[in-house]
């Protein structure tokens, strides 16, 4: 089965063609450098209007790269939420239009669950059931995944997402935006035990990183002077470690209740090297297998949406054309 996937929930306009939910034939993201030239230099950034300008060229490009035409596509999957409603509608409407015109099935999917499905595009695939952490600029969610259509949300952030905490810390330290990559690099040169930042919400399945942000702010205020250039790596490493400790601890605790032996870590922040190392160590200690998608499949992309959509379509889950977009995905809804 060939499925066209479309993703437009936030900054990226993306389309991909995936075969049998396993093999990527194309995976086009509109902020890709080579695409900009083709597109005339416009970077589709935040807005629905920009998604609108990008969506059709991106879809065309994904078909072209896959070497197929719409005649070959058996189904269309698009992100339904959560995200920026105007942006989601662009991709969702395009998917519906194609499905309607071609008389092929359409399915709208949860973007966060899509991040989990990205692992099924890799060589090594986790067995069900498993525990999954999706950690990105906009999300910090833990799930027990029994099957593609049975993902149970165990915990999520109550305020800031983990990636957002990185970005905000980078801003406070004058390291620029977005901060994830800079922090990853600087932290390598720092001592993570130098400053003891709190590990918030220890006994809850949910996350809260807003208080950690305030703790960093208080720390910076009580320093007589702004931290010297040499000290910044220590501050960054300590802050990063606080976030990682919380992510690892809660995920491993959830994994302890899951009958399966695998842990999946997905989403943009899963590219953080220290995070990967800490998860490797924790999983090894607990005798669990760790699965992390390759970096290109960790960030927002449409191949994961196509892969996830394929599995839902295979289960007979098809949506009608009146399916609406969701800005927020309420707890408890599949």
């Amino acid at each position, binding site marked *: 089965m060939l499925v066209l996937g479309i993703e437009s929930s*936030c900054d990226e306009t993306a389309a991909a063609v995936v075969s049998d939910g396993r093999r990527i034939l194309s995976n086009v993201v509109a902020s890709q450098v080579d695409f900009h030239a083709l597109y005339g230099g416009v970077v589709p950034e935040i807005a629905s209007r920009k998604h609108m300008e990008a969506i059709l060229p991106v879809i065309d490009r994904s078909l072209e790269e896959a070497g197929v035409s719409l005649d070959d596509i058996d189904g269309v999957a698009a992100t339904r939420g*959560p995200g920026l*409603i*105007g942006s989601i509608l662009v991709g969702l409407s395009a998917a519906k239009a194609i499905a309607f015109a071609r008389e092929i099935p359409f399915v709208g999917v949860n973007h966060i669950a899509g991040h989990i499905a990205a692992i099924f595009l890799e060589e090594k695939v986790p067995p069900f059931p498993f525990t999954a952490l999706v950690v990105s600029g906009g999300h910090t969610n833990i799930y027990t995944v029994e099957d593609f259509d049975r993902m149970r949300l165990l915990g999520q952030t109550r305020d800031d*997402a983990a990636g957002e905490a990185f970005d905000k810390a980078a801003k406070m330290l004058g390291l620029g935006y977005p901060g994830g990559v800079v922090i990853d690099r600087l932290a390598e040169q720092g001592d993570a035990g130098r400053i003891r930042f709190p590990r918030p919400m220890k006994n809850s399945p*949910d996350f809260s990183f*807003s208080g950690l942000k305030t703790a960093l702010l208080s720390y910076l205020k009580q320093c007589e002077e702004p931290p010297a250039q040499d000290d910044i790596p220590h501050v960054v490493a300590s802050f990063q470690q606080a976030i990682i400790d919380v992510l690892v601890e809660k995920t491993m605790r959830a994994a302890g209740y899951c009958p399966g032996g695998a842990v999946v870590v997905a989403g943009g922040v899963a590219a953080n090297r220290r995070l990967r190392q800490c998860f490797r160590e924790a999983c090894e200690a607990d005798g669990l297998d760790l699965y992390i998608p390759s970096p290109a499949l960790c960030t927002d992309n449409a191949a994961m949406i196509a892969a996830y959509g394929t599995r839902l379509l295979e289960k007979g889950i098809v949506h009608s054309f009146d399916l609406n977009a969701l*800005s927020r995905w*309420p707890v408890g809804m599949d």
Partner: protein
Amino acid sequence: MMSVLILRSKSLEDTLRIGRIIGERALPGMVIALVGDLGSGKTSLTQGIAAGLEVPDEYYVTSPSFTLVNEYPGRLPLYHFDVYRLAGPADLDDLGYDDYVSGAGLTAVEWAEKIMDRLPEDVVIVRMKSLSDEERAIELSSRSEESFELLKKALEEGGFA
């Protein structure tokens, strides 16, 4: 004429309570501009407002920094903006900002100082400042006598100010 009300929040709980009172009394179409540094409590206050608007518990009101706008159902719908990442007014147009602001819901805008010239005449401005780890100064002002008096009265009844 701009009336000003200065409140002191002694804790996160106080900030949530102040938000809740604002949400309980909010009128359709009200726009609340939140001004204050990182960690001053803008998102916390909005969580309180959401509780006052009866946003269902299964919706967590989280920071909109990444998504730019989050929408929630409630007694009045809540539109929660964070305009920090926006490059300019054109981005605001692309987000459909005018449609939100002219709608029947309550619009709360974090980092509103970046779009001061795009706020409606009757906006309620809430300036937040950290006094210590826990304490916050919260300053309410509005050119709309109606909104200001309504919220002032409610906050006074609630034991604030």
